[in-house]
């Protein structure tokens, strides 16, 4: 039996401001070389458990720990501050807030300085880490100029340069497009085999990991251990089948739309039209101009040429709270005064906002925030909704809820244009797919034509949902 890395004996954890325990009586062991995934619904304490393992908690939140936690067969409390972080490295979820230095090289050096590595050992270790992560060419690049996927790779390089024995990953794929995510997994698999790392990951998008993990630890909403079993490769969340609700009238007509900002051609002239009730998924690689297209459609970016003819375009950003202007959900929806009281009541009812109508828009859950944003847009008489990455970082329940919401609204005549990286979600929802690449529109296709066209998929960094789950069969 290989060495014991983590040993939890009846471990419980409670935040000082909470009434209930976040983690409740968890007992388990993890041995060297294991590849473990932590699963469970949002808010069940997966990340909290991860932060206990790398000793960020309880010190950073004054949390109350009960039970016993041993790391490398020694009690967790006996380690000095920062000592354990030399052996356990962590990669976090948000690629934008993991770095404190300007360039890749300096960021790596920061880690080495923390570990008090002597100066003459730094250079070879930096070279090695860069090579291992395939970042050698980007050594002197400014981190903030990299894409989300590349930033995540830099974060992994920073974790690996410590020569850790354990790697903790907190939803490392949530900001990557499917193709980049697959590359990341392939690369991590090779790395794990080389160095016999112990890996513990928190992850919602299990289908992308294929057979990487060998063990699954599942938590339930009370923070108790729901299951500890052998990992079986997962299908993505399966969505119910839906009937399209396309009506004959045009909801949006775009002709010769192009965007040039500061002499940079962000979008080449493109034309397409969308019918009322149609659900269009906009897809393409990271940084191909999907968001630019969306923002120029609803008028956030100035159009250089072309016309957009529609019934009214609404925009729901990835963080819906960007839209909020008032202190109350009810006022938020009524803000524009474009709908009368009866219409507003109806809208509040159908979006299930009545129960939270007095709440502050910032204090409600993410899903509720999105419903408020949609409500506000519809009340504003904008029946064509543009949604920027509504799926990123959402668990299965939230995805299903989102699916229901969009399906329901489309039946009532709302038109959707959605940017998403989640192919399963796209495949089950889309009536048509608009492919964008390097600022040019490849075309607007009927959805089922796209999923079968391997060439088209690969060129746009998409993965066939078929390879991931059988549900797309319904389109074949």
């Amino acid at each position: 039996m290989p060495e014991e890395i983590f040993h939890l004996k009846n471990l419980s954890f409670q935040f000082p401001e909470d009434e209930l325990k976040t983690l409740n009586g968890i007992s388990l062991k993890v041995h060297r070389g294991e590849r473990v995934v932590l699963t469970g619904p949002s808010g069940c304490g997966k990340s909290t458990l991860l932060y206990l393992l790398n000793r960020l908690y309880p010190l950073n939140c004054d949390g109350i720990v009960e039970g016993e936690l041993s790391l490398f067969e020694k009690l967790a409390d006996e380690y000095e501050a920062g000592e354990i972080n030399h052996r356990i490295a962590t990669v976090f979820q948000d690629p934008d807030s993991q770095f404190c230095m300007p360039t890749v090289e300096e960021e790596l050096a920061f880690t080495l300085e923390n570990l008090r590595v002597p100066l003459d050992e730094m250079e070879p270790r930096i070279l090695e880490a860069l090579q291992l992560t395939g970042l050698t060419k980007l050594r002197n690049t400014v981190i903030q100029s990299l894409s989300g996927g590349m930033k995540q790779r830099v974060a992994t390089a920073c974790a690996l340069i410590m020569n850790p024995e354990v790697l903790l990953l907190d939803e490392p794929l949530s900001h990557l497009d499917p193709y980049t995510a697959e590359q990341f997994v392939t690369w991590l698999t090779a790395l794990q085999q080389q160095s016999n790392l112990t890996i513990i990951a928190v992850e919602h998008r299990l289908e992308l990991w294929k057979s990487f993990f060998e063990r699954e630890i599942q938590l339930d909403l009370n923070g108790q251990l729901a299951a500890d079993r052998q990992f079986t490769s997962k299908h993505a969340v399966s969505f119910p089948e839906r009937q399209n609700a396309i009506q004959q009238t045009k909801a949006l007509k775009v002709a010769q739309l192009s965007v040039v900002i500061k002499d940079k051609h962000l979008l080449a002239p493109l034309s397409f039209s969308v019918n009322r009730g149609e659900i269009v998924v906009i897809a393409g690689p990271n940084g191909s101009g999907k968001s630019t297209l969306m923002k120029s459609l609803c008028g956030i970016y100035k159009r250089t040429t072309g016309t957009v003819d529609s019934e009214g375009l609404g925009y729901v950003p990835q963080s819906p709270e960007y839209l909020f202007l008032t202190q109350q959900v009810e006022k938020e929806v009524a803000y524009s005064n474009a709908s009368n009281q009866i219409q507003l009541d109806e809208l509040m009812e159908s979006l299930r906002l009545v129960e939270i109508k007095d709440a502050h828009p910032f204090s409600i859950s993410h899903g509720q925030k999105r419903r408020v944003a949609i409500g506000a847009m519809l009340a504003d008489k904008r029946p064509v909704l543009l949604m920027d990455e509504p799926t990123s970082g959402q668990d299965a329940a939230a995805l299903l809820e989102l699916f229901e919401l969009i399906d329901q609204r489309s039946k009532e005549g709302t038109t959707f244009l959605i940017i998403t990286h989640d192919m399963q979600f796209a495949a089950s929802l889309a009536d048509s797919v608009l492919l964008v690449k390097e600022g040019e529109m490849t075309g607007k296709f009927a959805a089922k034509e796209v999923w079968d066209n391997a060439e088209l998929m690969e060129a746009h960094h998409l993965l066939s949902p078929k390879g991931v789950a059988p549900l797309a069969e319904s389109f074949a």
Partner: protein
Amino acid sequence: MRNLLHDMNPSVKFILITLSMLAIAFFFNPWTPFLFWVSIILLQLTMSRTKWKLWLLFMLPFSIGAFGYLWTTVVFGADTGGTVIWSFAGLDVTDEQWARALSLAFRVMAFSTLSLLFAFTTDPVKFILSLMQQLKLSPKLAYGVMVGYQFLPVMKDEFIQIQQAQRLRGAKMQKHSWQRLLSMRQVLIPMLAGAVRKAERSAFAMEARGFTGEPRSAFYRPIRIGRIDILMSGVFLVILFVSCAGGSWLS
């Protein structure tokens, strides 16, 4: 030659500039700050790669401020005696008043030019690293500032995005600037909410990479004090001495 000011050790430069300012503050004649001001500009002209257009833009408010000092001291200054050299519209300007006014105005110009010289020739990241290495600034503080510095462009993007999204909702641009300032609140609240979250995440990321705030034993990019710094210290001290002595002698 043109790199000299840029290549200086930022901490040395910082100390020299602080010393010069303190020294100049003790001279009340108009010539000392004037001579010092001119020499600083000459120094920057010959030993740096400054974008002068931008420099002029930055100097504009300081110049207006300096003129304000000149004007108020001449018109409202306390009566100090001395001979009247100039009189108009019932105002008598004595030579002493005039000298004091000029001294104040040139002092403003000299100090602002000196500050801009530092700002234009120093890389902020290098400055913080140097503060940590030479002046023993605590790494906790230094890296804190550094993270904040990395966040600036992200915050700017976020600000624009929120503003755009809210304008789409029909949040009108206010006509008067004070109203616009008040309506900034709507943009700032979501932005600050996001910033608090980001700050916590960054702190976690740093700690997870073994950062404890302890002084470090080795630096990957040691920022050294070299011959340039000795040379430039000499140059600064000569300028300081010449303007102090020359100013006293001329008045």
